[in-house]
């Protein structure tokens, strides 16, 4: 009989299965779209760590996505590719550093202040890149060569081959999910969840919550940078728009749309929204209007996101209070 957990497991398997044979199913347009969706999924999961698990509503998350992309553009020479084993750590390090600085200021505040401050700092970075003519200004900058998956003369994987790139991104999506699951199950994750549930009590139980929030912020920012890096490789161009707060708003919308605090939900949200956008953007010039209406409807009608639709298949297994009580009483005697 179908129940919630079985449904979730089955759905996940089918989803991953379809993605895994993607290059065989999709022709190049859709292959690229799916790659973009997977990258967006990584981006969304990184924000879910903050919003859904730590309770930090960051409205400047796109800044880290964009910073990593720009760093790749800066560090990629015109004539030849740079090794991914150099550029990736570099770009991730840059995103982490940006997250550390912005996080350090932001985490000392909470609630509305936090939202506004993260928004403001991200916008500051947007303006910096938008006005920096050396980096292409508002047009952005090209990445002339995809990174070399190898070093020197040795090429382990050919990233110019779209199928190879597809699988690299696919592996990154799965890997990011597993990494986040591991971290959330570890002692660190317990503290984070405690902070979201009741930060004051978590503090009173012995945890320096500010430090934990900062670490979560940096982790999330680094993963956002990872997504930005992958996006930059895929499209070959980085522009200030990647750091604009509209981009931050969109990824936030994905997280809520998908179902925050589930990790998987935001990935679903990413796919759903991109599918919608792909279909409707050609039909109308005013996609943003519909997007806006759509967001409002979701907030009002489905506040726990698409993932909560799984509840149609039954509630999460909970032991009723009386049963548990009588069971234990019996065990005692």
């Amino acid at each position: 009989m179908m129940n919630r957990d079985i449904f979730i497991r089955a759905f996940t398997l089918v989803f991953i299965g379809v993605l895994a044979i993607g290059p065989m199913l999709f022709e190049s347009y859709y292959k690229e779209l799916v790659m973009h969706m997977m990258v967006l999924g990584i981006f969304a999961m990184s924000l879910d760590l903050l919003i859904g698990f730590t309770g930090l509503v960051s409205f400047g998350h796109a800044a880290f996505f964009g910073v990593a992309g720009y760093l790749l553009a800066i560090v990629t020479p015109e004539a030849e590719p740079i090794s991914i084993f150099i550029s990736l750590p570099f770009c991730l390090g840059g995103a982490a550093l940006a997250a550390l600085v912005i996080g350090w200021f932001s985490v000392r505040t909470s609630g509305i202040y936090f939202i506004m401050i993260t928004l403001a700092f991200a916008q500051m970075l947007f303006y910096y890149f938008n006005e920096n003519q050396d980096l292409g200004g508002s047009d952005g900058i090209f990445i002339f060569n995809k990174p070399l998956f190898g070093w020197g003369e040795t090429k382990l994987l050919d990233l110019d081959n779209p199928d190879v790139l597809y699988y690299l991104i696919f592996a990154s999506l799965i890997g990011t999910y597993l990494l986040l699951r591991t971290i959330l199950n570890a002692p660190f994750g317990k503290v984070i969840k405690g902070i979201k549930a009741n930060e004051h009590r978590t503090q009173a139980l012995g945890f320096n919550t500010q430090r934990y929030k900062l670490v979560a912020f940096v982790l999330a920012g680094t993963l956002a940078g990872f997504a930005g890096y992958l996006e930059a490789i895929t499209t070959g161009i980085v522009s200030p728009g990647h750091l604009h707060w509209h981009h931050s708003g969109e990824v936030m919308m994905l997280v809520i749309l998908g179902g925050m605090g589930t990790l998987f939900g935001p990935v679903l949200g990413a796919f759903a929204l991109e599918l919608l956008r792909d279909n409707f953007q050609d039909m109308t010039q005013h996609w943003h209007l519909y997007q806006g209406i759509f967001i409002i409807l979701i907030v009002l009608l489905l506040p726990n996101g698409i993932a909560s639709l799984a509840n149609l298949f039954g509630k999460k297994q909970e032991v009723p209070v009386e049963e548990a009580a009588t069971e234990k009483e019996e065990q005692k005697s």
Partner: protein
Amino acid sequence: MDFTTFLIQALNGIQYGFLLFLVASGLTLIFGIMGIINLAHGAFYMLGAYITYWLIGYTGNLAIAIALGLVIMVVVGYAIERLAISFLYSRDHLHQVLLTYGLILILNELQKIFWGTDFYSVPVPDMLKGGIQMTDNQSYPYYRLFISLVCMIVAAGLYLLISKTKLGMMIRAGASNREMTQALGINVNGIFAIVFSLGAALAAFSGMVGSPVSSVFPGMGDEILIISFVVVVIGGIGSVKGAFVGAMIIGLADTFGTVLLPEFASVVVYAVMAMILLWRPQGLFGKA
């Protein structure tokens, strides 16, 4: 820089500060009293400017356009409060942010549908054209002084409203303790509608009166929104006094920053915010 340039920049900074204050005060009041973060607040500024441009086409007179425009904006503000914002009172910040973000998308797109993507200019009224001669080749426009004057009057009016009238007292009570105010039989929802419409009108007025100077263009709402956030954060959420001080600081910092450090012009404002936050994370007049 010489004294005249300094004076001109200072006057510009103050004038910009006043315009910012009108927008930020609405934002901080709405948050302080209703507990709602309204991202679409910048859209009111934008709508004010566009409606002015549109009405001037019909009436040819800035003052009439502004007066009519204000009436329209109060109605729009009230409608949005009843139809969208009122659903947010029991929701958390995240949902508020998202819903009002959706509102921005809708309003921005509606603006493009009605008025297109061009930049428009609003003419300075004949009566206020020209300026004060400061040196042989520099004059300071009368209209800019007019903006500061008008905003000062509005600010004074706001202060009187909040601190001296019965409505103001109810507003302050609602800000300080919503449940108690409700328990005393005061129609808190009615007050919320008033506060929201007032905030929208203030932002719209800022857009209207500033339009001859700043032009009317898509995205102007987003721009002023972020800066208003900075002002509110610096001043302390819920504090109108803080919004005033913050607006002046930012107005002057941005103006002088653009002149003294042109490569870092946009960044100056955020650097100021960061420094103030280092010292007082709750803002200058915010509650600890």
